[in-house]
């Protein structure tokens, strides 16, 4: 019984893995050391209080809110992942 080609072997577990990896990627973007160099720091985001914040402001808000909200749950989930991968490979 052959498995399907690789793109079809998506399971819900791979979705969870993708979600964890993406959230980790967003969480490690540091404000001062990295984002400010691109002009994406805190001071650049909160600008217009008009009706249209613009895409860049939305992305910055999203990054900042993900960092704030998901910091503690990410620690827990990552630790659980590490333990599970160590135990079960």
């Amino acid at each position, binding site marked *: *019984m*052959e*498995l*399907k*080609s690789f793109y*079809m*072997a*998506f*399971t*819900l577990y*791979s*979705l969870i893995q993708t979600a964890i990896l993406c959230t980790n990627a967003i969480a490690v973007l540091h404000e001062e050391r990295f984002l400010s160099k691109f002009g994406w720091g805190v001071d650049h985001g909160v600008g217009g209080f008009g009706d*249209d*914040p613009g*895409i860049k402001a*939305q*992305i910055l808000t*999203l990054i900042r809110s993900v960092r704030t909200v998901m910091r503690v749950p990410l620690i827990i989930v990552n630790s659980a992942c590490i333990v599970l991968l160590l135990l079960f490979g």
Partner: protein
Amino acid sequence: MDYTATQSGFRQRKLQPNMRLRTSLVDGSEGSQLFEDTSGAASGPQTGYSNQQAGPQAAGFPGQSILSDPMSNLAMAYGSSLASQGREMVDKNLDRFIPISKLKYYFAVDTVYVGKKLGLLVFPYMHENWEVSYQQDTPVAPRFDVNAPDLYIPAMGFITYILVAGLALGTQNKFSPELLGVQASSAFVWLIMEVLAVLLSLYLVTVNTDLTTIDLLAFSGYKYVGMIVGVVAGLLFGRPAYYLSLLWCCVAIFVFMIRTLRLKLLSEAAAEGRLVRGAKNQLRMYLTMSIAAAQPIFMYWLTYHLIR
């Protein structure tokens, strides 16, 4: 017999299961044997009948010694009250995570609506009025409005797609029961990713719309209808028929999505067809186009390996 004592006590509560029991008994001996407990079936269907008639409040237990004990009566009463309490608690907690009442709106469909909607999905060119009618600020149930999104067609379409995929894989001699699960989970994953991508892009473009997540789920699920049509045509008539029908359904879904999303995402003026300049409207137009264009891509991606 003890049943005369318990009859009046249990008559109120056990009336519902009794109706079920009676109708199942009328079906004949096969029906009664399907629903009867096999512990009493050793005496045969004859005594099963007389047992049921003598103690209709037995709630399906032909062994009457269970109920003659008052302790077990108490236990049964306590158990049923515990079960109803647990059920209330589960309902209350479940409602916090999954809005059950909102979900019920999406399943309020009837046959006429489903027929019209399926026709609209395959042939959206003649339909003129795409607006969802409202009733005092809440959208009308799908039963009364063809344009309202529902979850019945996407859910049924998803299940049918998995079954048809299993059938198609069987004709290629590649079928095994695990593959059904793999197909189901991968299609589900693609659906979730698509809904998340649409949500993210809607957030980034700051569109003030009343599209909920479930609406987006419904719109993304409508493409399963086209996929099923394509795969079935391919199974019946070969590859050219698959390509032709898939092409037709892709164009139909594209037009359907654009016409439906145009009213929800774009501003009033642009939705009526007048050209409105401005970066914001252009961005929203691009967004609508890309959401609509993603549907044919997914339709092809999820079905081409089924027709070889």
